[in-house]
């Protein structure tokens, strides 16, 4: 378990260097998208059309922030539950998605595909929306504006805090750590 700084884009080489349990601080561009945006992205791919941003080597953040107050880039912006995106994730991994930030469990299918496509799953602290917002310097809606808090946003982050929960070999911190403290 190490502390690592990551700069986006998240290339395969960088992914291979990340291990479950590592604390990371992410700097660069990440994309905010949750339930409804995932549905649209998958529909877009099914129609063989292009996604609204380049997903190769990208990091997706499962977030639906509160509205920004005047003068602030974003409102409270913690992660939402990742499991709801499980059934909509494989097509994105096939397009080169390398990192996902959320909270909570992922299913077997996603973990197998992460191993195959060399991707990593990070957990941010659920409910720490104000703390996380302080690492987001710029936020811009780039697609699906009609979805309101579920629109796709391009986020510029500096030292965004997260933990590697599932690495590209399928090691899963949720399972290994829980076992240590079971009584």
């Amino acid at each position, binding site marked *: 378990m190490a502390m690592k700084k990551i700069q986006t884009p998240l290339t395969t080489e960088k992914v291979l260097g990340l291990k479950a349990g590592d604390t990371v601080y992410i700097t660069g561009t990440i994309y905010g998208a949750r339930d409804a945006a995932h549905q649209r992205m998958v529909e877009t791919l099914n129609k063989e059309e292009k996604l609204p941003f380049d997903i190769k080597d990208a990091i997706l953040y499962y977030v639906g922030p509160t*509205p920004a107050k005047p003068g602030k880039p974003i409102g409270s912006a913690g992660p939402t539950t990742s499991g709801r995106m499980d059934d909509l994730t494989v097509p994105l991994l096939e397009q080169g998605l390398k990192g996902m930030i959320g*909270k909570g*469990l992922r299913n077997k299918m996603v973990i197998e595909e992460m191993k195959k496509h060399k991707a990593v799953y990070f957990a941010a602290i*659920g*409910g720490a*929306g104000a703390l996380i917002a302080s690492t987001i310097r710029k936020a811009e809606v780039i697609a699906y504006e009609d979805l309101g*808090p579920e629109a796709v946003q391009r986020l510029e982050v500096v030292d965004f805090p997260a933990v590697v929960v599932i690495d590209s070999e399928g090691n899963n911190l949720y399972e290994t*750590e829980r076992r240590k403290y*079971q009584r």
Partner: protein
Amino acid sequence: MRKMDVKTITTAVRDLCIKANIYLGEDVKKAFFRAKEGEASPIGREVLQQLIQNAEIAEKEEMPICQDTGMTVVFVELGQDVALYGGNIAEAIHEGVRQGYREGYLRKSVVEDPLLRKNTGDNTPAIIYYDIVPGDQIKITVAPKGFGSENMSRIKMLKPSDGVKGVIDFVVDTVSEAGSNPCPPVVVGVGIGGTMEKAALMAKKALTRKIGSQHSVGHLRELEETLFKKINGLGIGPQGLGGSTTALAVHVETFPTHIAGLPVAVNINCHAARHEEIIL
């Protein structure tokens, strides 16, 4: 009869929505500090420290603690000697939610039709429960409910022969299967008895009790303690990253039930255990 303009209710609900979402209750903050001292896992301690820091930033910046500012659950205890005028009480509450979520920069998380899923744009309707009580006052409790934890909640109609062991197993299994999803450390509301919907409502209402409060009835206090110990022995820990703090509290409420039944509902709340009340 005491007369009251429903506008008073609108203003109160607006203020409660904003306050509940930005300022974490003192009882929850205290529970974070206590948990941090006793937490066995270093990652767990770090998570708890970040939650304390998050509450401080939220307060200072007047920013919501969590981006999921919830579906707004409102409990109204309406004194039977109050005569309301100036409009309809339900609409007055919805208007308070509308104003609070707009003026407080809170997220609008409600969709109009659960199947068509178009956002209503103002976080209405609220979920409102009314109790008619003696007296000439109105007590309003606003409890914004996030759905990361709501989705992990369950209800089961046990058999009377399942008894207290059946109840314990069901509650502990529910929290165990939820794992990291409901943003632990959680508050667990348990409703036992009544009918199906009564059990669910008791579980929800149990979440509005202060952390650290114990049931006044002996065997139910013991049940709360037993559940608390078993849940914290699951190893899930803060954010599911392992540890000895999975629950901050377990609150049990009961009601008489039918000779053939033992309904049990488990409503889970994330660590952002938000609820504010006012007496008008």
